């Protein structure tokens, strides 16, 4: 693999033989006179964890929002599985298989774990109870929720009938991640998943990310935390001043190098 996919001018060149599952080409997004994204490209390959790092205002969030339908880019193209996609709202990206775990933990505190996993895509009972009376299959959903958590290796959530508000921060994050990872999603995007968590809970979430990768689900991880990024990422996309400064790997560069590129102290 090429260690450095240098700036965006060259970013279009096919430096990889694999086909990216998600690909953004020369995205531009401006907010009035402020340029959020200045022709950013990004490739996410199957089965990898791609970290996106960058200083505040470098365009990380805008980039992610464009990829997940929360913002519509002014220019540029996004391809999912090689096909061009045009997301107008988060639901579009959601429907296409891009699941996002938001910083503010989008879970419903009063509902239980299983209900949260299935929120917005409840399974109805078979037969007339489900079709006419629209009764949900509570038992089935709880069982599936248990299976799903087990498969993801989430051992901290034994009881899926507990209301989410009674869980710790790490457990809640696990619920949010499990929801994103379940149901055959193609890409999971995690926005600062450990920002609000303690050390032990952060480690649980990192384990979870590795689990996702091992199951073949590619992950985009936005983070400020360099040690964590270097721990889980296969490749690291460095955003600087609205552009992609470089894409590096933990093997090719040190943390110091990454910070230097991020701040502009060194060139990629």
């Amino acid at each position, binding site marked *: 693999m090429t260690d450095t996919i240098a700036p965006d001018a060259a970013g279009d060149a096919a430096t990889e033989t694999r086909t990216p599952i998600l690909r953004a080409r020369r995205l531009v997004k401006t907010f009035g006179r402020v340029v959020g994204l200045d022709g950013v490209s990004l490739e996410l390959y199957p089965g990898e964890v791609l970290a996106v790092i960058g200083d505040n205002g470098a365009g990380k969030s805008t980039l992610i929002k464009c990829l997940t339908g929360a913002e519509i880019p002014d220019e540029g193209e996004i391809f999912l599985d090689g096909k061009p996609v045009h997301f107008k709202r*988060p*639901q579009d990206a*959601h429907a296409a298989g891009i699941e*996002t775990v*938001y910083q*503010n*933990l*989008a*879970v*419903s*505190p*009063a*509902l239980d774990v299983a*209900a*949260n996993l299935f*929120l*917005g*895509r*409840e399974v*109805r009972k078979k037969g007339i109870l489900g079709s006419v*009376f*629209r*009764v*949900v299959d*509570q038992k089935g959903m709880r069982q599936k929720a248990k299976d799903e958590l087990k498969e993801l290796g989430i*051992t*901290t959530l*034994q009881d899926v009938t507990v*209301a989410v*508000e*009674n869980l*710790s921060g790490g*457990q809640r994050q696990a619920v949010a991640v499990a*929801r994103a990872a379940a149901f055959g999603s193609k890409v999971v995007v995690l926005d600062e998943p450990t920002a609000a968590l303690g050390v*032990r809970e952060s480690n*649980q979430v990192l384990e979870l990310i590795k689990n996702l990768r091992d199951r073949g689900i590619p992950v985009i991880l936005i983070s400020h935390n360099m040690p964590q990024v270097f721990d889980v990422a296969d490749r690291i996309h460095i955003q600087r001043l609205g552009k992609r400064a470089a894409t590096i790997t933990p093997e090719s560069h040190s943390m110091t190098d990454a910070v230097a590129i991020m701040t502009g102290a060194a060139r990629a």
Partner: protein
Amino acid sequence: MSQPTTEPPTSALDLAEEFLDRTTPLSRIRSTLHRYPAISPAIVLVLSVIVFGLLNDRFWNPANLSLITQQVAVVGTLAVAQTLIILTAGIDLSVGAVMVLSSMVMAQTTVQLGVPAVLGIFLGLVVGLAAGAFNGFLVTRLKLPPFIVTLGTLNIFVALTLLYSGGATIRGGEMPELLTWTGETFNIAGVNITIGVLMMLVLYIVIALILQKTAWGRHVYAVGDDPESARLAGIRVNRVLMSVYLAAGAILALGAWIQIGRSNAASPNAGADLNLDSITAVVIGGTSLFGGRGTVWGTLLGALIVGVFRNGLSLAGLDVLWQTFAVGVLIVLAVSIDQWIRKVRK
């Protein structure tokens, strides 16, 4: 967890944390109440029934029990609509006004225009739905706070009612029998139960089942809990809100029909207290004004508590004002308990 010795498996640690979290009896009570918010109103109802029963023998008189149920029927029905709206973190100050408007439409169309009773009730239902749609439109499309919206529509509906009816009451005797049918009684174990009370109970069962068993019910809770999270989970928040206001409108029309039977008349001045009384029942029933928590069963208990208090205090010979005083104390207590319970949330 004071000594970080060898690291036990994380799950065991988490269990230990959970355990440490709830060691005091008080916090255990709190988390139980948190999980089952209808427990505290149930206790209050049982205690008040016992106390009032001891204070006055006539309390247990079948005729008196029948009276309590009838007094609760209308406000209990309106409170179901109110519960749905409060679960979405809204509030509806116009429920009584909508109910009265709907009842006037039912009565006037049948008596003055001579339309068949079934059609009259249907027209009342249409008015209820239209009022709900109007409230829902203002809340979801214009993004106005429900409190302000319904404060405005309360006045609008009250004025429309008076304009439409000319301020005149229509007596039950003039109406087709179907309209006053909700006031008919039948006897269960010596207690006279009206059709209206029965309708109210069926309504509670139906709405409770819908809230518990359907995806829509979960979405109502999710939207009230945290609308942004619900949206990100793929729930169409505005659609859920709109459906809640429509459902409330339909329930209010049912309340209108029950009201006609209960008072054997349709009066444009009937519902003034009901706007707030329905909120009282919901709040005493343990449903949180902040949305996302509560049950219709709690609301039924809340409505019964208010009914029992008013009845028991008047049997005890206290001034009517003390009834109002007691209800006020109950509201403050209920909200304090809710606040205390919600502290479980970290």
